[in-house]
């Protein structure tokens, strides 16, 4: 509830202060944060690390982007395209040069993208989730690298240029996900609405029987098994769920931005997501939410300049050293009083002299 109020307040604030351009980054941050809260459940609650989440994000974004832009006109007469047309998933239109275009409808592309990401997570998860700790991190890192190289090398996915001119994604009631300036406020609410709904779902999950089982796996798989928890099944389910969250974020952000590039699939992106979850405090859904929005917003505003990735690397080191439970769990009051007491003492020393 306070979160909904805050979301509305921020929108009105940008309206009054005539800083509406911030809404664009806030919308993008909300989508990135969707991935981050999904990763937070996987890492913080179930205790399984993934350094391949940018890969799932890219699978979502790229598949949805490619299906809605790649012209099928050349295959118009092929039986499979005719079959798809019969299902009503094909839309015809014109590209910006006025040429005839025949592509898959966004809703269908979105479904295909999310289901593909879920399936890949499932197939990948069965063998790699048997691994623990560093080994799991390595395996998921390898997966991320593979996805990165695939989108970079494949002509279908636009090689180094990525995919551009991705169309708007019409939702219900005339709303559509697009980066069009006229719909900036609507899109801010679409993104935040989606994020809040997903937060509620995840919060329900961690407070339930399934959530307790996940947390027990984090502590001790042996003990969880002896209590009747099917640990391998639960790990697989949460891995797929978390990958689906990443893919949903990828789909929406690609339609919002109107494109996606290979940097979205990069390993540094995965490292960044892990860093943000760590800053938020691993097993801290709200921490992940706040840090996801704040850090992504700063990064998207270009506050860190060309040192973007370096800043996230540094954050990861500092957090691990000084606040392994996340900065929200630090005792700020105690630290501040300590700091003030120290400076007060120094003043006294000065007076004695």
């Amino acid at each position, binding site marked *: 509830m306070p979160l909904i109020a805050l979301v509305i307040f921020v929108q009105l604030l940008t309206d009054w202060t005539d800083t509406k351009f911030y809404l664009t980054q806030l919308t993008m941050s909300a989508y990135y944060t969707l991935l981050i809260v999904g990763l937070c459940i996987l890492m913080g609650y179930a205790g399984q690390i993934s350094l391949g989440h940018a890969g799932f994000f890219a699978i979502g974004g790229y598949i949805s982007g490619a299906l809605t832009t790649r012209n099928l006109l050349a295959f118009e007469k092929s039986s499979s395209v005719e079959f798809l047309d019969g299902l009503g998933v094909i839309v015809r239109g014109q590209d910006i040069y006025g040429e005839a275009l025949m592509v898959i409808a966004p809703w269908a592309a979105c479904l295909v993208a999310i289901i593909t990401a879920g399936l890949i997570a499932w197939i990948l998860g069965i063998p790699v989730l048997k691994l623990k700790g560093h080994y799991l991190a390595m395996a998921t890192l390898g997966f991320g690298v593979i996805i990165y190289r695939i989108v970079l090398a494949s002509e279908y996915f636009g090689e180094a240029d990525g995919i551009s001119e991705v169309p708007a994604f019409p939702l219900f009631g005339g709303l559509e996900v697009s980066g069009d300036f006229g719909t900036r406020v609507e899109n801010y609410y679409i993104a935040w609405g989606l994020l809040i709904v997903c937060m509620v779902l995840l919060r329900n999950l961690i407070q339930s029987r*399934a959530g*307790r089982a996940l947390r*027990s796996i984090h*502590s001790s798989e042996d003990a969880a*098994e002896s209590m*009747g928890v*099917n640990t391998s099944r639960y790990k697989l389910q949460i891995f797929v769920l978390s990958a689906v969250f990443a893919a949903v974020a990828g789909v929406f952000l690609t339609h919002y931005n109107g494109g996606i590039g290979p940097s979205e699939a990069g390993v540094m992106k995965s490292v960044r997501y892990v860093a943000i979850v760590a800053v938020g405090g691993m097993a801290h859904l709200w921490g992940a939410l706040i840090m996801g929005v704040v850090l992504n917003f700063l990064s998207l505003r270009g506050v860190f300049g060309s040192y973007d990735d370096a800043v996230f690397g540094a954050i990861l080191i500092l957090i691990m050293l000084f606040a392994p439970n996340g900065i929200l769990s630090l005792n700020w009051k105690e630290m501040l009083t300590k700091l003030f007491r120290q400076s007060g003492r120094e003043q006294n020393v000065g007076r004695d002299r």
Partner: protein
Amino acid sequence: MALLEISGLGKSFGGLRAVNDVSFSVEEGAIKAVIGPNGAGKTTLFNLITGTLPATTGTVTFNGKRIDGKRSHQIAALGMARTFQNIKLFHDMTVLENVMIGRHTRSSAGFLASMFHMPWTWKEEKSIRHKSMEILEMLGISEHADTEATSLAFGQQRTVELARALALEPTILLLDEPAAGLNIYETAEIGRLIGRIRALDVTVLLVEHDMSLVMDVSDEIVVLSFGEKIAEDVPAAIQQNDEVVKVYLGE
């Protein structure tokens, strides 16, 4: 037919035979103890029965069903609960939450039902909580329900682990050195708790070093040495058994 029948059970780690051709059975309602010097293979035997480790040879039959080769969580769902020698409570969770996990096999809410907070899960959640509190009250630690489990004193942590195992409503309970690390008062308390568990019609199989506890509570004792069974009898007879005395005290 006995509740638990172990027949020709063996486990090799490379060339080492940790457990070798061990057979015995546990009758329903009995309290049976497994004793033996350090390294006799007692904990390995437990891990074989509960499915934590796969057996190299032999069979385990529980309630008329073969359970060797099954995974731990499947065996737990059939009504076998256990505790661990080095307490394995779930950290970052309260005492109550720890015990609530014990209700896992007695409830069914899955991922989607939980995420969408389906009405029927509310009722289930309530009954999980209610039953768990009941068990905490029975064991006299309900005042710690909302304390983080791993912050309790060692003896109390053992009781919480026992509560978690009982929440599963097991037909048989396997206790791996329940008195390890406890002082004589706490050990006596564990002895009383085991008596109360028997009153709930739960069969108990325990591994224990503390001889006074074993002699007090058990109906029958199995003695292991270097992975092999060397004796099986009532406590009074075990105390008189020459070979057992030799194993424990040397020639």
